[in-house]
């Protein structure tokens, strides 16, 4: 349902808003006659609803048409890029998720300690900084000064996995820093709000040690919120990926989309937008489902 709405939005956003697609494509070369010709070629003279249904039907069969910029089939262009982006996002997520949840738990257990305050200051700084600034700092030190890692992540189909991991180390590190900071702060906050509940006080009065209380009493209740935090941040990763791919000239979906937007290549923009939206919606769906499973109250209501 949400997905349907999103597809409608994407279509409306690109084709229905004021601003004529044909004149946008032709830019300065627009003459009345070739404008009309292009409109006919794009089918812009047909009713909007009909065009939407056709587009949706094709999209469901992974057919997004051909690129306006180079005439290639969109899906052929998008598929390898999507693979690259998923690889980078997974690479970052595998490292960031355990790191962030672990640090968040530690900060919550030692709330108010020196460690907690240092972590707070650091993460606050990192989330304030634009991704590309972090990326440039990393490039400046790790590439230009030390020469450890390449600044361009120009992978292709023949790159081996080891090479790939090495080439994408800096983009990964940038993403990890950003989402770890976000995730850690949110994990800490959700654990702390649970640690203030009366049943935690009761657990202390039952004579349980802090580690047992955090693991047996706080964590089961925090699971929903934490998974929610992870899902939100993985969704955030999608946005971060766009910027980081551009800094490191990584051939992913984000870079493709930015290129397509500047070239007014509408079919490619639509395809990329739809993929990003699908990922975003799926992650939010997972978060909701886990929230229900981890809470007996909601679980029974659903059953």
């Amino acid at each position: 349902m949400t997905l349907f709405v999103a597809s409608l939005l994407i279509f409306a956003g690109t084709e229905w808003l004021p601003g004529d697609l044909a004149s946008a494509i032709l830019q300065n070369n627009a003459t009345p006659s070739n404008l009309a010709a292009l409109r006919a070629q794009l089918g812009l003279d047909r009713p909007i609803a009909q065009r939407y249904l056709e587009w949706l039907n094709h999209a469901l069969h992974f057919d997004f048409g051909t690129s306006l910029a180079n005439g290639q089939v969109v899906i052929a262009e998008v598929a390898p890029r999507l693979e690259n982006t998923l690889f980078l996002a997974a690479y970052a997520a595998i490292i960031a998720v355990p790191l962030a949840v672990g640090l968040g738990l530690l900060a919550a257990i030692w709330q108010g300690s020196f460690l907690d305050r240092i972590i707070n200051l650091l993460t606050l700084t990192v989330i304030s900084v634009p991704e590309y600034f972090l990326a440039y700092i990393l490039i400046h030190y790790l590439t230009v000064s030390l020469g450890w890692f390449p600044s361009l992540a120009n992978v292709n189909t023949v790159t081996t996995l080891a090479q790939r991991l090495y080439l994408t180390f800096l983009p990964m590190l940038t993403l990890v820093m950003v989402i770890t900071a976000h995730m850690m702060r949110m994990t800490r906050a959700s654990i702390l709000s649970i640690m203030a509940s009366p049943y935690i006080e009761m657990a202390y009065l039952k004579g349980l040690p802090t580690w047992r209380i955090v693991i047996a009493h706080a964590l089961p209740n925090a699971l929903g919120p934490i998974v929610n935090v992870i899902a939100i941040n993985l969704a955030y990763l999608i946005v971060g990926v766009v910027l980081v791919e551009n800094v490191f000239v990584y051939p992913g979906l984000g870079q493709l989309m930015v290129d397509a937007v500047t070239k007014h290549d509408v079919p490619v923009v639509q395809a990329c937008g739809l993929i990003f939206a699908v990922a975003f919606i799926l992650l939010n769906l997972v978060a909701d489902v886990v929230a229900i499973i981890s809470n007996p109250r909601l679980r029974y209501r659903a059953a």
Partner: protein
Amino acid sequence: MQLLGHKLGWTATFGIVVVAINLCLMLFAPWIAPHGQNQIVADAWLTPNSQQWLGTDDLGRDMLTRLIFGARMSIGLALSATLLCFALGVSTGFTAAIAGGWVDTLLSRLVDLLLSMPLLIFAFMILSVMGTAIPVLILTVGILNSAIVYRLARSVAMGIVVQDYVEAARLRGEGLGWIMLREILPNAAPPLLAEFGLRFCFTFLLIAALSFLGLGVQPPNADWGSMVKDLSGMISLGSSAPFYPAGAIALLTIGVNFIVDWLLSIQSRGHGEGA
């Protein structure tokens, strides 16, 4: 130091100083900057020296001057977009909370719709069709962001609406305006203020990101995001030029975030009182 009867830590003081300086730059850019915005003052790519404190850019324009004018564009844009999204988000959020029923359902569905896609991606698509004129930029970012403000304003107001004093005002026969302005707003102010800071940072970073990707502010105007893009080629040559605008972005967001963090800590202490 003290403000509003609460102790300011060094982080909050730092934040206030940074924000104050930036606001001055924004308001008085033409009087502070040593040169004109697009004036070519020397050779290209000069390193920092006694004449051009931060050196010059690819066309030989003074970097410091560009930065100061960039402040005007970046902060001005973000501030207008944030004000717009707050005006929209808070008024609709409060209305939904007070009115309830179908008004609430309709507005909330609409907002779910807006939030069903990542903001940046959504902004891409709109800007790709609508063009990147400055009013379009403000409207797009402002409206998309207002969905998030709506959610917060609604949930804060929901908490207040069920309080007995709002019920007392309703029983007295007070109108929507009185309830919104006199009963809810004063009590909703602290969380909304903190959210304003966060929203400003978000908007500011979003616009900078769009500009960085070449989809925001277009030449000859410049904001910090597009300056980073223009200078980014220099990074692999070991130049620190891109760090100036990027650092300026980071500094301002850190400053605002420090203030917000302080505001939130006051609020949470305030809640602790009842326990």
